[in-house]
């Protein structure tokens, strides 16, 4: 297990470094000058040069990169103050520490994705199991066709429909908003209910489909059939043998979904006017904000890589045939 972790973490580390270098290069390849945005009316070349100097953009790219990477480990000093490790720099646009900004936005993204996850995983796996157990019945057909339709929907289509129905025309609910759970647990819950609901509709449908087909596949596996033939009870075989096996593909997809969600659900946040990591990422790119772009890119990649490691570790737990190392 330890060897597995060390190996995976070190390769994740290398990938992160590559991604950071890649992002840096792409940033400088873009024909966009960040100094323009911090330059007042009648912005002259000389004025822009002063800003570039302030931002440190006049140094060679390699040096800028080196300083950025060193800052992550050692921290850096900026004119607006000390930036402690892990220092992702200071945003060009807001003059705030990128790390603080990300930490500030993270609770929303975490609440949104983890809250949604709990709902859609419970409902999705449950419905999938039910459909698989009652394969061919009306329950199965209803669940399957509903999940087929919802899984084919997009947030930017379903979101406005739900908002329109529940908020703007009927006034049953308030517009989605984020309140920290520590301040007002009830407000936190009600504020995010609509995004969760919409996410859950779409994702539940996908997980229902997945869980159903994976279950059906498993139930036909030889070891499962053998178990039944040996006279073990149906529920026992169902949960102890088949369900466990059916989780493997689901865990893979779950890992991918979760990684992507934690890295910022851009469309969800845009549809519901929520300001999490996804919105931050879009802002960073539109505002030509290098440190912030680097920050969100690295955070996003870290989540994806972490989820991969967790997924692989989970395999070993679910499927005894898989050995780590």
């Amino acid at each position, binding site marked *: 297990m330890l060897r597995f972790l060390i190996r995976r973490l070190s390769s994740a580390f290398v990938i992160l470094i590559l991604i950071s270098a890649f992002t840096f290069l792409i940033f400088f390849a873009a024909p966009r*000058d960040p100094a*323009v*945005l*911090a330059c007042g*009316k009648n912005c002259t070349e000389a004025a*822009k040069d002063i800003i570039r100097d302030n931002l440190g953009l006049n140094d060679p790219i390699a040096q800028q990169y080196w300083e950025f990477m060193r800052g992550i480990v050692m921290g850096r000093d900026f004119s*607006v103050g000390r930036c402690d490790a892990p220092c992702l720099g200071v945003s060009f646009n807001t*003059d705030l520490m990128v790390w603080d900004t990300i930490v500030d936005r993270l609770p929303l993204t975490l609440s949104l994705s983890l809250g949604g996850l709990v709902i859609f995983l419970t409902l999705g796996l449950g419905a999938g199991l039910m459909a698989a157990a009652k394969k061919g019945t009306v329950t199965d057909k209803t669940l399957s066709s509903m999940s087929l339709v919802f899984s084919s929907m997009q947030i930017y289509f379903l979101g406005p429909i739900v908002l329109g129905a529940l908020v703007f025309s009927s*006034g049953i609910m308030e*517009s989605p908003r984020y309140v920290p759970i520590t301040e007002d647990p009830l407000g936190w819950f009600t504020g995010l209910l609509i995004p969760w609901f919409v996410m859950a509709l779409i994702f539940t449908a996908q997980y229902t489909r997945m869980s159903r087909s994976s279950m059906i596949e498993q139930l036909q596996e030889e070891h499962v059939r053998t178990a039944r033939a040996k006279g073990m009870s149906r529920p026992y075989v169902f949960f102890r043998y088949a369900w466990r096996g059916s989780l493997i593909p689901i865990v893979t997809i779950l890992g991918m979904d979760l990684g992507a969600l934690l890295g910022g659900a851009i469309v969800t946040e845009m549809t519901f006017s929520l300001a999490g990591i996804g919105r931050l990422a879009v802002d960073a790119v539109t505002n030509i904000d290098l440190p912030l772009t680097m920050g969100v890119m690295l955070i996003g990649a870290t989540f994806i890589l972490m989820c991969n490691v967790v997924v692989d570790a989970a395999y070993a737990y679910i499927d005894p045939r898989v050995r780590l190392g």
Partner: protein
Amino acid sequence: MRLLSTRRARTAVVAIAVGSLALTACGGDSDSQTKDDSKTQDDAKEQSEAVAYGDAEASKGPAAPVEGSREGGTIRVYQQTDFSHLDPGQIYVSDAGLLSVLIHRGLTTFVEDDEGGLTVVGDIATDSGTPSEGGKVWTFTLKDGIKDEDGDPIDSGDVRHTVERLYAKHITDGPTYLQQWLSGEGTKYREALPEGPYNGDHLPDDVLETPDDKTVVFKFDTPRPDLPQALAMAGYSIVPEEKDTKEKYDQKPTAIGPYKIDEVNSGKNMKLVRNDEWSAETDPKRHAFVDGWDITFNHDRVDQSKRLAADRGDAKNGIQFSGAVDTSQIKSIVSNEETNARTIKGYAPYVWQLNMNMDRIKDKKIRDAITYALPNADILRPDGGSYGGEPAGGLLAPTVPGYEKGYDPYGKIENPQGDIEKAKELLKEAGAEGQSLVYGYANVPHRQEQAIIIEKALEKAGFEVEKKEIDQATYYERVGKVDNGLDIYMTGWGQDWPSISTVIPPLYDGDQLADGSAVYSHINDDKVNSEIDRILKITDPEEATTEWQKLHRYIVEEINPAAPLYFTKQLQIHGSNVGGARYSSEKSYIDVSRLFLKS
């Protein structure tokens, strides 16, 4: 050209909006030919008078009473993005400009009457300044009893510091009028004090003199009749010397105005509370009816509009700061009597125009043909239609003194669908049928839509149009390059204070043409250049205005460097419990200096 905090929103070029002309609530008739229902729209006065300069009496506090006002409560503000800056020296754009009314004070400020008429008065100075030597020397005396939030008095040393710190390298975003007038054009002024006042260097007495604790004297080499108005800009608000923390000041400035910052969570929210050291007796402009302000960010325009229109809970006490009713919400808000009563409307100071690169389109006939061909009303549609603006006939906004209502040499108001026939004719006369034009536009949805409308109209008139999309964030930098490779491109410009001197010189003075200048049309006409120099020196505002008007007509009719497209309008909504709401023609947003809560 800093793009305002709502960079992604509809506004583009932004200066601090200092409008002059007010829109009286008399509901004048709209003179556009399109049938529209925006007749309830306020109308600009036919012509505005120049801004009055107030004397010591007018500069005394307290501010004029507000009917029905009561004290107490907290106003909720819904904003899209965090304020771009809090350090006064960096403030040029409208969002922070509005906040600065509440926390900062300058040497002078504008006060506004119920009709929107503006007077420059002394804010921390006893009057709007005393000129001598024909306007080359200006003397200000400070009021007694002005203190910062810690109770420390403000003296002339603080004013000196405020000016000198603008020369330091970390100040990049703010206005540069004063520095340039004192120490040289362009960025040359920075050489006078490269490190600012921070290592003990100061401007010499023949530039800025502070003979005693209460007196400040500015000395220029040419008359600067507009100085009191320039000093009223948020960018010249006072930064007390002992409190200045250089770059860090942008996070936590020291308040002199009626409120101080209690809590800031950058990018999320800000809370203002009363500044007990502020005294209403010294302030001719501001009231402080409410106990505090609760500002939250990340509400886009749609969200702001919907929350305030719904008027539930907190939103009853809510206002928009620099946001406006989203174009998608205008219909539902304006057509509902109850919500419509809670809106404030007025002209914003921006004129959108289609610049014609005169280095590339040299024949005036071709420029006229383009001007005639444009369907102004259609072009306005994606930007909010008749509630977002109205077709422009000239290049001056209704908010600037000297605007002539109904001035329409190219028939853009009379015939807002464009005159394709006339354009064809002119193009034929010029012998340039099939002339190809490169049209540059910012790559955002409504500009894309405008691009295809313009493309279609010009192609009907016999041009070939090549559209070039430009990244929104760097749009103004790109079109501001002398060698921009484009023929036609839209820009919007708003005055810095209500005077044509902040519109015509930056946009049409060929001597200023350089990369990054605002002479987008590359006009370089000897007569225009010399007239600008001449009129800038006229000290009598009335006379100057008349001369500017003449020059404006000359530019539009004889040179035609840019086709007028449309003026923009402001439409904001507030909660039902907010009282005292009116349009501020100075800021072109809701007037935050006089708001109260009804219960």
